[in-house]
């Protein structure tokens, strides 16, 4: 499977190069480069050893950083041109936005708490994000300066809990289970609160 995966990934990369070359709209060209990053990740994943697994995360982070930097360049260019940027004001009223968020977010939070660790944090955060976004779309004001700072501080405390758990692994290997729980708890709170902040962002 290795050779097939690599060859197909390269073909996808070359095809997306053609697509970028044909594309006249700058924003679409930028989005199409994402396809290229996916084929890059496929090539690394095709190797399939644990070292390759460790390489995927830096590859992903680097590509995200580049895309963010270039998106910022595009925004600055539009500002320099003197165009007014659209602020996406969504204004529609669906019943599902009013009824579903509480239920779905509670289920996701409980499931995330059972999972714990990094994955659990991400699941809890997706529940919180869904709740916040639904409230935002309906136009309810959930942004509160005090809440924002409080959640930031809470996340910091959870992070230090994670660090304590991590250090405990090395200093007191006998009590590894306790420190494992420490680290899992710290990580789940930290990730969910940090990602949940996205929903409250201005």
């Amino acid at each position, binding site marked *: 499977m*290795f050779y097939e995966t690599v060859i197909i990934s390269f073909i996808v990369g070359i095809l997306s190069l053609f697509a970028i070359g044909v594309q006249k709209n700058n924003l679409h060209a930028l989005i199409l480069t994402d396809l290229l990053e996916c084929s*890059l990740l496929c090539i690394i994943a095709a190797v399939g050893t644990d070292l*390759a697994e460790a390489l995927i995360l830096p590859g992903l982070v680097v590509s995200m950083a*580049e895309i963010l930097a*270039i998106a*910022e*360049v595009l925004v600055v260019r539009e500002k320099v041109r003197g165009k007014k940027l659209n602020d996406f004001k969504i204004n529609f009223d669906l019943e599902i936005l009013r009824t579903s968020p509480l239920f779905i977010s509670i289920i996701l939070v409980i499931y995330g708490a059972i999972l714990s660790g990094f994955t659990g944090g991400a699941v809890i955060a997706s529940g919180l994000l869904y709740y916040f976004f639904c409230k935002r779309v309906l136009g309810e004001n959930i942004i509160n300066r005090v809440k924002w700072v409080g959640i930031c501080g809470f996340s910091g405390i959870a992070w230090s809990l994670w660090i304590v758990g991590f250090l405990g692994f090395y200093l007191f290997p006998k009590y590894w289970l306790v420190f494992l729980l420490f680290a899992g708890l710290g990580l789940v709170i930290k990730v969910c609160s940090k990602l949940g902040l996205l929903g409250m962002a201005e």
Partner: protein
Amino acid sequence: MIDGGIFGIVPFGDIIFKYSMFSTIGFVIAITFTILVYLTKPEKQLEAQKFGEDKLIDIPLHELKNRRYMAIVCGIATAGAMLTQDIFDFALFLTLVGIANIGIVSAVKREHVLNASFQYGLTSIIATLPLFGASALILAKTGTLSILELHHLNKNLLFEKILYGLGMAGETGVAPYYAAKAEMFRAPGSPYILMIHLSSLLLIVRTVEILLTI
């Protein structure tokens, strides 16, 4: 050995830094120019106007700080790339230099400069595919990414080396091309683009050394 003998190795777990004759000279050059960039003040530019008086363009302090910071990051990343002893680490340093170069170019708030910066950014994103793809293929073929190990293996890596070279060229090698395209020599606050040319020059030389060694 093309690098003129090893003085010593600093192993930080996975990350191994090597001090050879070649890498030490490159490191010292990169650090010297970083200090030079830190100490310089940007030039003021006199722009000829079609109608009326000529205009003296001054750089505001926050814009200056932004550009200088990017230039210093670029210099430090170049210095790190000189010492690293791992192909994937080197690729990461290359992309870091690429991002810093985008930052240096795009700090000038003019439309033609930002256009060139955007095109350079697209090129550098596209170039990550051959760069990281080549390192993954080398890992698949030999089972290691360390240059010290690869030196002893004697495997045929021609295709991977060509891909790696292509990736390096797209990531930092073309940076002076886009700097020239944007007429950065004439843009206000010019001395910081020195770092673009220096990093691209040093990294090309270092890449050739790595590809000859493995």
